[in-house]
């Protein structure tokens, strides 16, 4: 890389962190809300969620 390795790999590392991070955050957000949905539907009829809705 002609001495610029740090900058070239640095920027592609940043790309990986930012784009990969965005996908990971998104998937964890989906898992979180799926759990919430499962916990509400498991209890038949009455709506019980871990945090109260206003």
């Amino acid at each position: 890389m002609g001495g610029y390795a740090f900058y070239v790999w640095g920027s592609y590392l940043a790309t990986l962190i930012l784009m990969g991070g965005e996908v990971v955050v998104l998937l964890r957000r989906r898992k979180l809300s799926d759990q919430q949905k499962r916990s509400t539907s498991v209890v038949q009829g009455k709506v019980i969620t871990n945090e109260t809705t206003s």
Partner: protein
Amino acid sequence: MNWYKYASPTNFYPLAGKMIPWFAIPSAILFVLGLYVGFFVAPTDFQQGDAYRIIFIHVPSAWMGMFLYLLMAFYAAIGWAFNARLSSMMASAISITGAMFTALSLVTGSLWGKPTWGTYWVWDARLTSTLILLFLYIGFISLQASIDDRSRADRAGAVLAIVGVINVPIIYFSVQWWNTLHQGASIRLLGKPTIAPPMMAAMLIILAACWLYSIAVVLVRLRQIIVEREQTAAWAAEARA
């Protein structure tokens, strides 16, 4: 084939689900291809050595950040004008990916600045305008985050996005004007080395990859927003029943 039924979030949800893999997989393939072309096919630049290879990600992400802002404003305006909830949700879904690309182009821009100009931050017209664009994204996201009532958040965001879109050309022009005022001849960030065909090819491939990536991520986030909104609506109806 009545397209109109897909305008309602609940109908669009399964369709979006089916479409995501069709965008995610080609995006990954194109990324790998683009990187391969960029690193192995493209020659070493006589001026900047290998440092220029950063532009393969820097330039596409800058374009993406810019274009996604316009797309976000478009969807927000449509959602507001026609009271279409799905379109406003789309705008909120795009905003985060757009901000990510703008931040990415700033990071790669400054990492590229160090080898070529010796400093991490150059007050170049394009870099500065991208920084301001990031502030506009942050404004949109924080406004929507601080309003609880979803319909107000959508429409307030739409007003801000439209005002932002009107201001973007003015900001770009004023920064350009400010740049020429203070630095005389403006050093063009791209340095305009002779763009060898493989370099341009690598950049365009990665741009296409970024496009497909954005569509896939936005669709996933859109489905997520639909689920979260329908859940709160269902809870509310449940609680009141």
